[in-house]
């Protein structure tokens, strides 16, 4: 079964919610999700962040919907790591 283990997203978001809330909300989406947020650029009303998410099985649709709910806009997916794990019988 192929699962996404890591992704790096380029996101434009308003100043609020802050990066603590963004990181904790995304981390709360699944078990063993680990999130690293780096602020790349700060403007008057917005900020560009790099969002590095790692986990056992990342749900991209759910992550994108959560970001949209926060008022953030997903600019690009810069890196993805997917693994193919054989299920043991």
């Amino acid at each position, binding site marked *: 079964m192929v699962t996404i283990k890591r992704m790096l997203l380029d996101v*434009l978001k*308003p100043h*609020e*919610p802050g990066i603590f809330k963004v990181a904790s909300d995304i981390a709360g989406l699944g078990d063993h999700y680990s999130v690293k947020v780096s602020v790349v650029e700060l*403007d*008057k*009303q*917005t900020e560009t962040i790099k969002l590095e998410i790692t986990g056992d099985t990342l749900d991209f649709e759910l992550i994108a919907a959560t970001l*949209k*709910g*926060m*008022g953030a*806009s997903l600019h690009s997916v810069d890196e993805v790591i997917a693994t193919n794990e054989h299920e043991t019988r």
Partner: protein
Amino acid sequence: MNMKLAKRALFKRVLTDYLFLLKLAKSDDIIRRYFVVNGFDGALTMLGLMMGFVFSRPADLNIVMNVCLGAAVALGMSGLSSAYVSETAERQRKLSRLEDAMVCDLSGSDHGKAAKHAPILVALVNGSAPLLICLFILTPLWLANADIWLPLPPLYCAILMALFMVFLLGVFLGRIAGVWWLKSGIETLFLAIVTASLIYFITG
């Protein structure tokens, strides 16, 4: 038991969501300000009415209560409608600016929800603050009407209640500003006494 816990969890979640939306709309401090400003309006209006009745020909207690209740409801409705209209316009303007900066539609996001719900909460506080404070000040009149003994005539008791409410608002302001609560309370009480003196010189 489980149902009760679930209800409590739901209530806590709704409350947390609303507090988050208020914070997002930066309306939490506006609510505090409106509460004090309109609470002051309510308390001083009642003080003025009570003093007017004290210096006028004695009126029936029912008439006094109806006049004061009418003023309280009018203050409440005025606070509710004016805050809703002005806050909705302000939130919408801010949302449009943010949408321009983000170059996307934010109506479905938390910012959109905050723009929709924050004015309702602000309006509720703005309307209920003067109404509740007025109703509290009118308590001696209701007690007297129900033939419950009061240490002073009902109008004088209501005046003391109004002064007490103004003092409490001052204490609340002091707590917000982080200054000594008694000093802040006495300052607002002084303002109410100045108002009462003005009413005395004009009508008395």
